């Protein structure tokens, strides 16, 4: 689509590189079999495409075990599988107050509907000082805390959580740590081992530039979640239980072969640019836009923290967030408004009952686009 300024990369990245579109097209024609089910050429070609992507994902995070890269439909799917597959009965789960519903809803479901006797609570991560966040985390731990589920970066304000330090504390206390990498993977340079996490869940269609319908669960050594969804996986077919080894043990049903082949091309594309370069460009643009927005009368910013992925949350005086987004859309600028599936995070940032407007940037955005958006925001009047 021409003449669109796309500032909604935190929802999904756009446009996808041409190489991703080509890889999807090639997968339809050259890898059209069902991977891991048959022995013919098209099935084996599909399986090879899937394995190439497992290796590309592992390499991106300096992770040695491609077979511990599990494909899911999206981050929510991965988080549900990780949380419900690892939570211990009669235990407490600690999470932050910047979480998305992909974390909160599975925890609430466990609290209300399971017989596992699970409790959960959150610590405050909505501040600039990382030492305060780490202290808040430590103070919120309980004797029965066995699992922590924490975002790497907030989807509404971009705040980067000091996950490596939190992970160190978790490991000292024997607590498993699941990280939600929805806004950080492909945006920030990340090394799985250095993050001190046990599980990393993330999408293929955001920072990695793959197609929608691709998600990943990266499992550290020795981490073996119970399967929460069962079905055919081409392995041990006579066994009524989902036993066996990773990754197939956690991949019931046919995986999204064309999406995964596209994802592999997306990973290649961002590696070619360099994630450091991507982060630097988008962060500089984010800083510029943020500073200039502060000079526009009637704009209130929320969660304007120093260490962040390139996300800006704001409201315009006299406008509901939905209306601001609609007015921007009329001028060709794509943003997302409302609660962004993160009501507790909006509450923490005091953005108001209807939420706010989110601008999320990537390396494909330019200073000219930012200037045009500033011009439109300045002219927004009743």
């Amino acid at each position, binding site marked *: 689509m021409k003449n669109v300024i796309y500032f909604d990369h935190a929802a999904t990245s756009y446009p996808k590189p041409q190489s991703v579109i080509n890889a999807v097209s090639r997968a339809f024609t050259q890898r059209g079999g069902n991977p891991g089910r048959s022995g013919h050429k098209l099935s*084996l070609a599909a*399986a090879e495409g899937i394995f190439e992507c*497992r290796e590309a994902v592992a390499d991106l995070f300096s992770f040695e075990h491609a*077979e511990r890269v599990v494909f899911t439909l999206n981050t929510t799917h991965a988080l549900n599988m990780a949380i419900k597959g690892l939570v211990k009965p009669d235990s407490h789960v600690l999470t932050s107050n910047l979480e998305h519903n992909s974390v909160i809803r599975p925890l609430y479901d466990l609290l209300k509907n399971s017989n596992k006797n699970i409790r959960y609570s959150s610590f405050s991560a909505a501040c600039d000082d990382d030492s305060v966040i780490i202290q808040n985390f430590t103070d919120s731990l309980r004797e029965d805390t066995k699992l922590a589920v924490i975002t790497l970066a907030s989807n509404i304000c971009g705040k980067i959580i000091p996950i490596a330090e939190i992970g160190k504390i978790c490991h000292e206390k024997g607590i498993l740590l699941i990280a939600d990498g929805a806004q950080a993977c492909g945006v920030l340079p990340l090394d799985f081992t250095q993050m001190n996490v046990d599980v990393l869940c993330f999408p293929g269609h955001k920072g990695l530039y793959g197609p929608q319908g691709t998600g990943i669960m990266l499992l550290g050594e020795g981490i073996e979640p119970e399967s929460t969804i069962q079905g055919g996986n081409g392995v041990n077919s*006579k066994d009524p239980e989902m036993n066996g*080894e990773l990754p*197939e043990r956690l991949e019931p049903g046919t995986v999204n072969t064309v999406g995964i082949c596209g994802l592999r091309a997306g990973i290649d594309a961002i590696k070619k640019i360099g994630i450091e370069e991507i982060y630097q460009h988008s962060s500089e643009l984010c800083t510029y836009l943020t500073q200039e927005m502060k000079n526009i009368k009637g704009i209130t910013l929320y969660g304007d923290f120093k260490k962040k992925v390139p996300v800006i949350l704001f409201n315009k005086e006299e406008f509901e967030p939905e209306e601001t987004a609609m007015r921007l859309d009329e001028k060709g600028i794509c943003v997302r408004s409302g609660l962004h599936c993160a009501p507790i995070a909006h509450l923490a940032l005091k953005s108001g009952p209807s939420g706010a407007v989110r601008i999320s940037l990537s390396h494909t955005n330019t200073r000219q686009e930012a200037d045009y958006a500033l011009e439109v925001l300045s002219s927004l009047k009743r």
Partner: protein
Amino acid sequence: MKYSIIIVSSITYAIKAKNEFAHEAIYCRVEKVKKISNQKGCGYGVVVRNNDLERGANIMRSIGIKIIDIVPYKDGEK
């Protein structure tokens, strides 16, 4: 030339072995096998020349691939 099939738990490990063998100049191909054991059902394996069998099996073990079975391979009797 005589061949054997090294049976593994899934297609993932068969391809992992195949890729590793390519680095080690061991010719192989991935094939579906009818049953990996009487209890478990169908699976996958890598077909290698018997001359490469021991080296191939050792490479697989060294990179953490669990070998379910090694059986003589006869074309058409998968």
